[in-house]
């Protein structure tokens, strides 16, 4: 290759690079707003985890002729930053977007990003669990999201470990062991005496369970003033959780110790919303099949997780998107989704459905999970979650509890840590 052609080629390559960069900056100006009444060619749905919408979406396509693209993100932790990016840059969001309980509140704090669904869908306000319906609304009454699923709460326990410690193993008898948290603690102490091992995975799991049973304001009052340091519900959860430190395996949820603990049997009981069953199964492995079972949660009720479907303001087809969300959250769709992937229905009619109530889980010793969780759903007490609920819980309450659990701080010092951090994390 002689010098001149090489030079020309290099110049061409450089030019191409410049053009490519310029092109990148230039593209993306596709603000072609559709004409009024025009039917969309395609609607996009964003979900995380498993919502069980694959078959439902196909049905919708056949009924309406509108193509639906289902975008799934495996974990909520990866889903939230994407959503933030879409909203911050004003482009890229799906027409129908799933919002989880923990992140709903912070997105609610900026209601301008979302379409008010009230005029776009029929009145469903009486068809769902009332508290779930209310949480989908902004403080000024705008309908932000239609309810999808709820976590509910039960206790997953190891039958073989219970037997080794001389405790009953049959699920009704186990549920009868702990009508309240005090008796749960006593059962744990018996287990600990017999085996020398931790009974429950961590005290943060306990506090999480207790918090959502209170049915009152948690970290915020109704006017969204932060009341973490004076809230009776938080204090109850704190006292109950800290009292359990002696029966804790100190394996906090999602930690290495926790994942490993399922196989190693470092704890005999953990708290299970319905979506947790799959995670317990995956981490315990095939060799522990039939060793787990599901019992009622102490004191009854409680909830962990659950979502809504919302329509971002940037959607070009808010009307059609709202109709799609309405379809996906209907009673029949919720039963279909439960049968496909297990998210618990929130529609009152779906909760009475025969197929739902008779469902049993083979891995968990054939436990009638439809019935157990369905009963749990009815006992869930509505709670008010403020705008930064998740941040206060994860970055203030739980670290303080773990500091106490691991002996890094006295109970008093840990509480002071919580009060201080709650003020920082809760500000908005």
């Amino acid at each position, binding site marked *: 290759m002689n*010098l001149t052609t090489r*030079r020309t080629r*290099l*110049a061409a390559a*450089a*030019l191409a*690079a*410049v053009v490519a*960069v*310029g092109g990148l*900056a230039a593209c993306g100006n596709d603000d072609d707003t559709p004409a009024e009444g025009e039917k969309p060619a395609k609607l996009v749905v964003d979900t995380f985890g498993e919502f069980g919408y694959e078959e439902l979406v196909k049905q919708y396509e056949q009924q309406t002729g509108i193509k639906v693209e289902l975008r799934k993100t495996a974990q909520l*932790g990866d889903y939230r*930053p994407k959503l*933030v990016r879409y*909203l*911050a840059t004003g482009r890229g969001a799906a027409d129908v977007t799933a919002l989880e309980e923990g992140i709903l509140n*912070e*997105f609610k*704090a*900026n209601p*301008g*990003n979302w379409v008010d669904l009230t005029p776009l869908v029929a009145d469903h306000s009486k068809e769902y669990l009332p508290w779930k319906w209310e949480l989908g609304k902004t403080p000024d009454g705008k309908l932000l999201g239609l309810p999808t699923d709820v976590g509910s709460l039960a206790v997953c326990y190891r039958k073989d470990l219970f037997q080794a410690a001389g405790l009953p193993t049959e699920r009704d008898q186990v549920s009868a062991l702990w009508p309240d948290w005090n008796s749960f603690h006593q059962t744990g102490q018996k287990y600990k005496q017999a085996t020398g091992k931790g009974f429950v995975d961590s005290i943060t799991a306990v506090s999480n369970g207790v918090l959502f049973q209170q049915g009152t304001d948690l970290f915020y009052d109704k006017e969204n003033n932060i009341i973490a340091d004076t809230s009776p519900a938080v204090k109850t959860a704190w006292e109950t959780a800290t009292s359990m430190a002696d029966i804790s395996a*100190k*394996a*906090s949820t*999602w*930690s*290495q*110790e926790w994942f*490993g*603990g399922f196989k*190693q049997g*470092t704890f005999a009981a953990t708290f299970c919303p319905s979506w947790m069953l799959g995670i317990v199964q995956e981490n315990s492995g095939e060799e522990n099949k039939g060793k787990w079972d599901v019992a009622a949660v102490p004191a009854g009720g409680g909830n962990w997780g659950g979502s809504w479907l919302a329509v971002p303001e940037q959607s070009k087809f808010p009307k059609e998107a709202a109709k799609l969300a309405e379809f996906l959250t209907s009673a029949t769709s919720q039963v279909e989704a439960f049968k496909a992937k297990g998210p618990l229905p929130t529609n009152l009619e779906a909760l009475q459905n025969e197929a739902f109530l008779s469902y049993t889980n083979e891995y968990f010793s054939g436990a009638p999970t439809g019935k157990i969780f369905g009963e749990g759903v009815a006992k869930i007490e509505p709670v008010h979650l403020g705008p*930064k609920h998740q*941040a206060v819980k*994860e*970055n203030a309450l739980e*670290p*303080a509890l*773990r*500091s106490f659990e*691991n002996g*890094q*701080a006295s109970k008093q010092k840990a509480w002071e*840590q919580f009060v201080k951090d709650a003020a*920082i*994390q809760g500000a*908005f």
Partner: protein
Amino acid sequence: MSLSATTAPPSHVPPPPEDAPRRRGHLLNRLDLKYSPYLYIAPFFVLFGIFGLYPMLRTAWMSLHDWDMIGDRSFIGIDNYTELIADEYFWNALINTFGIFALSTVPQILLALFLANLLNRTLLRAKTFFRMAIFVPNVVSVAAVAIVFGMLFQREFGVVNWLLSFVGVDQVDWDGQRWSSWTAIATMVNWRWTGYNTLILLAGMQAIPKDLYEAASIDGAGPWRQFWQITIPMVRPTLIFVVILSTIGGMQLFTEPLLFGNGRIIGGDQREFQTLAMYMYEKGIENLNTAGYGAAVAWAIFMIIVLMSLLNFLLVRRSAK
């Protein structure tokens, strides 16, 4: 760096031709000579402008606002910076960053110097194999490294605690204290970057003329003396480069401590190993309504890196005299 600055061979310009098309070609050729160099370097500067300079200036602008990532924003001047100076958790993150930096950079560079010196021996067999092998840790994805090391440093079933139990050390809760978490994180960083620094130092050592060593041998200097009086002074420019790179990397440490702490952004229940980059992420990205404050943290990190690099440069240069 005279090696890389090879000048293009002088082009043989033909004698000025008389006819018009040829003159045209001549003009193009002159334009080519005059302007095409700018075109060649343009891709870097254009890309740097878009992905380097613009985000930096934008971050500076953001840091002067009370900025909600998905909501309102208002100009507040330097309030974010005055708040930052009084922020206990910012200083905590700064201490953590410097602690982990010291625990990783110092042993890392010493070890890299030692290894590079070994690999530079003429007598070593299978040189290429060792030089390749030492670089392998750097190729492994940082997330994979952090996850594996997180398992090694697990409290109940971790290999490190298991090994320590043979010498009578009690189970260590690695993420429970400052010293232990810093050690664990520094171990990951060292494992990943020692090989990289070794190769750079090795390249520096190979540029040292061999006759210097021969002359020293004739004068009766042993290997140790040769290392201190020839190798070290001669690789000093490379050493500055390595130290500055390590400083930048150390100040931006993020993935290792984040994954070590099970992905929790506050890094330990009492923020024992939350680094500056993690604090920036907590304020700027995880907390949607403090994006402006996060931008201020980002600029603070930038200023600290600039200061540290200057300090490094001065120290290493001064010790040369």
